[in-house]
């Protein structure tokens, strides 16, 4: 089966003043199939949101990209703004934003924003009963209560604002849903409800790229996990194997999981390198107990892990 999204050797770098460049994404490759949820996890500043912006063609002017990201037969990196605006965003890639309160237009009601999106993206017309029915159906799909449709964004709780934003993202029936930190700032119950809803929306015919630093949310709904560290995907694994047994194989991924409060609750020593001064070799070597001379070369992603000394299968991750 052809994947919904196929990303190959995607790199993004930003040219800054004084000749400095920020390497935000380096050589990222992954496929995403219909009905599949891939969680892209990593700490803030590792480049995961830049990857999302690249897929939506929303990078700033000083960004340089390399590689490709095919959605069907369109290369998202090569497409011009006109194509992206008229055929891709909303129609073939739906975005569930990080901060719905900031994403929704503050001076218009949820109903008016849904109606505008529907009349732009579907054939429901610009007014009349057909549009009203479509608005109600769109709200219902994201479990947004119909009696709140006439409210303004600031009158909604965090959870309801998230549902309003999700409803907007679903209108175009896009085959790829991109959720960028959709649960930041929500409490645990709402996190679970939000990600469960996202999972339900993808069903069998859409794909979901969930970008998050919340490992519990990723564990809950992801089929596969991609761990990003200092601009590179360092591990790409099945979620069951990653969160359960045999556990992560990259030392960074293993450390990140072990930092969880229901595991060892121990931090990884040190901090990640700056994206302006990435080392020539493995970016994790400075923090890694297993590092040796071979780590002066960047390891490629082989068999799902980019490490010269991956954990061997069979070593159990301890759960406290």
């Amino acid at each position: 089966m052809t994947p919904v999204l196929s990303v190959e050797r995607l790199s993004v770098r930003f040219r800054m003043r004084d000749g400095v460049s920020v390497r935000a994404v380096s050589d990222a490759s992954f496929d995403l199939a219909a009905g599949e949820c891939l969680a892209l996890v990593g700490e803030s500043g590792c480049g995961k949101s830049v990857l999302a912006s690249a897929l939506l063609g929303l990078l700033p002017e000083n960004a340089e990209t390399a590689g490709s990201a095919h959605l069907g037969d369109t290369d998202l990196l090569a497409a011009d703004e006109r194509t992206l605006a008229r055929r891709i965003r909303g129609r073939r890639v739906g975005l569930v934003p990080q901060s719905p309160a900031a994403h929704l237009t503050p001076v218009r009601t949820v109903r008016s924003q849904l109606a505008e999106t529907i009349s732009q993206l579907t054939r429901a017309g610009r007014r009349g009963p057909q549009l009203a029915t479509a608005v109600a159906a769109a709200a219902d799909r994201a479990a947004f209560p119909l009696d709140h449709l006439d409210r303004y964004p600031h009158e909604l709780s965090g959870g309801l604002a998230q549902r309003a934003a999700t409803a907007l993202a679903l209108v175009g029936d896009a085959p790829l849903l991109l959720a960028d930190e959709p649960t930041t700032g929500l409490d645990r119950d709402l996190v679970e409800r939000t990600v469960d809803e996202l999972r339900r929306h993808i069903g069998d015919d859409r794909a979901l790229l969930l970008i998050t630093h919340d490992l519990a949310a990723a564990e809950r709904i992801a089929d596969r996990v991609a761990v990003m560290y200092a601009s590179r995907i360092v591990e790409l694994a099945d979620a069951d194997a990653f969160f359960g047994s045999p556990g992560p194989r990259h030392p960074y991924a293993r450390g990140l999981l072990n930092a969880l409060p229901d595991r060892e609750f121990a931090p990884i020593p040190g901090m990640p390198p700056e994206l302006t001064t990435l080392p020539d070799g493995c970016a994790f070597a400075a923090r890694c107990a297993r590092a040796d001379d071979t780590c002066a070369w960047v390891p490629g992603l082989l068999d799902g892990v980019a490490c010269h000394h991956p954990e061997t299968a069979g070593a159990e991750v301890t759960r406290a």
Partner: protein
Amino acid sequence: MLELLSVTAGYDRRAPVLSDVTLTVEPGAAVGLLGPSGCGKSTLARVAALLHEPYAGRVVIDGEPARGWRHRAPRAQRTAFGVVFQQPRLSADPRLSLADLIAEPLRAGRLEHTARVRELADAVGLGGDLLGRRPHEVSDGQLQRACLARALTLRPRWLICDEMTAMLDASTTAALVGVVEEYRRETGAGLLAVGHDRVLLERWCGRTVEWGERGPADDA
């Protein structure tokens, strides 16, 4: 002992966010306050840190009733508290370097700060040229490290952490909790940690209190 006694507080007298709430933290103890978004737990934390004046009720700090709120609180009471908020970007002056951010509480008292800033930066793991940068030049995790250091600058007897780690990845969370616990081991300071992550607060705090229908169900 930090005592919040029959506190009623909010932003509209006719509809207070919390009414008649009582919560105590024993000297040197770590209490986690758990509750869903919007329940009023952050408002209670602000009252405890003398940052929000309640409509009714009392706050007693180590046997002494609070004598004012915000800038009207006596300095000795105000500086008994170190506070860390959820969003480091909203709680850091964007014009200050991280070093100045950490030094600010000492500057306010015209005290010598170079050595203390270095000591705190080491404790929270801010090395290299990070101290010279301003907030927009560092990540959320690095900025929150600076905000925690700032809270510890004046060696407070009480720490109030309101969703300190909600924006952070697992490793940075474990690191910052480690810094707080190390400080408490050294100084015997007490802690009120507010949040909605049960797994985290139960691992972190000696006692957790659940926010029920009418406020925290505290049986201590």
